[in-house]
């Protein structure tokens, strides 16, 4: 059974994503990618590939060095129901994982049940198409947007009272509550569950305020059971792990948002 989400009328969540980590054989992956596309096309007709660039800087005798062997490019295949910012639902595919994303907006609130249901419909088909028998874990990500629109009570004169929204900054001196960009941080805590899990909170500045308009931040809460390289579990365990991670993310939401902020989400 799915854990229930608290009935917030206006939560700042703009994206929910379930990630299933499971490696496909490269040949099978490339050969069956087209077939996968045809399976998805009716529900998610907008397909687009993106390149991810990974840079690795090595230190050779005290000098930074870009080793050509370690700079890599990887293709990410995305499938969306609608184009661009109008998208409501998406699936992203790599050789070693798949993600199920649902997007929310002020006028179109979505829920965990929807992303879970998306996974329920497609995970077994993904596993069958790419012959994936075991997975190494699951991740669940909640992207919260902190902006003039989502936390209006804490926004004033192109400034955001971050200390009023996020608990860990509540005790900062009053003057320091106003955000000065960049204001990025990341922290992880042990989830204390079986299987082992981890909850990560990450804050990223999107717009710094001042001349660039009202400030915007993403406050991401992500939980994962992919802890340890050699973990292998049965595909079916994704359901239990998704519920477990959902509880963790909700706990994180409860802990990291101030009572004032949560009260404003209920309004």
């Amino acid at each position, binding site marked *: 059974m799915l854990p229930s989400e608290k009935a917030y009328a206006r939560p700042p969540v703009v994206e929910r994503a379930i990630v299933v980590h499971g490696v496909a054989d490269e040949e099978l992956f490339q050969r069956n990618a087209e077939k996968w596309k045809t399976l998805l096309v009716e529900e998610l007709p907008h397909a687009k590939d993106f390149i991810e660039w990974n840079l690795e800087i090595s230190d050779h005798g005290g000098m930074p060095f870009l080793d050509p062997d370690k700079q890599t490019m990887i293709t990410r295949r995305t499938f969306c129901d609608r184009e661009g910012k109008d998208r409501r639902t998406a699936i992203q595919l790599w050789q070693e994982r798949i993600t199920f994303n649902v997007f929310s907006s002020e006028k179109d609130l979505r829920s965990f049940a929807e992303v879970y249901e998306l996974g329920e419909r497609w995970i077994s088909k993904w596993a069958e198409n790419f012959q994936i028998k075991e997975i190494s874990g699951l991740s669940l990500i909640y*992207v919260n947007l902190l902006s003039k629109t989502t936390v209006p009570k804490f926004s004033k004169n192109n400034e955001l009272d971050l200390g009023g929204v996020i608990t860990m900054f509540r005790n900062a001196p009053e003057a320091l509550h106003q955000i000065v960009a960049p204001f990025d941080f990341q922290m992880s805590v042990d989830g204390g569950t079986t299987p082992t899990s981890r909850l990560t909170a990450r804050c990223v500045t999107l717009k710094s305020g001042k001349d660039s308009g009202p400030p915007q931040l993403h406050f991401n809460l992500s939980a994962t059971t992919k802890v340890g390289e050699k973990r292998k579990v049965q595909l079916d365990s994704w359901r239990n792990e998704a519920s477990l991670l959902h509880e963790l993310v909700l706990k994180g939401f409860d802990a990291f948002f101030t009572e004032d902020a949560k009260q404003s989400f209920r309004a």
Partner: protein
Amino acid sequence: MSAITIDNSPQVADFSDSARASVQHVVSGSKLDPAQPQLFKLNQRHFSVGGQDLVLEEFPRIAIYPGRFEFEIVGWGIVLPHADHSLIARALIRKFLYLHDRAVKMALTEQEEAEWASISSFVDFRRFSRERAHHIYVEGNLLSHDPEGCRVVWHDGSKIRLRGELSAPFKILDEGERFKAFAKFGEEDALLDVKFITPLPPVDEAKGDAAWQRWSET
């Protein structure tokens, strides 16, 4: 030796703009030379388009030139606009097939000759040749059916156990029945495909012995 990894890609699922917003700054001690490319390794060796496959021995190198909106697939003589990264597989397969055809016909130009020398060293040629091989005529006997597949003995006496899709075409045969077909074999004579299976009448042992006798006496 220590190493710092700057990974701007979404680690897991972040479809949002946060990945772009988290770009870290790399400070270079010298100016970028527009003539010197930045080399990347494409993490893909197997390319498949329209049912045609190409497997490389190594990951291909991609060269990005600062200030140019295109990239080069190193050693292949392929330059594509930056936005056309999704066409890499198609471009590689097309180039290889074109040069392979020209090489078979001994019609390579001097420049193509040089490109072919380079490209053919990147490709798993054994694999390519095997997959391009035609089906061959075979005969054999179906030994038995079972829920998981079937057992077959080929005309040379070698036996094989087939499961799943490969065993499906043999359902048309009765146990112990002779057949002829067209088959494609891979590494270590593994059956890759079989088609046009047709039942054959049993061999008349007496006629066979008589024919052999006549032939051996001549």
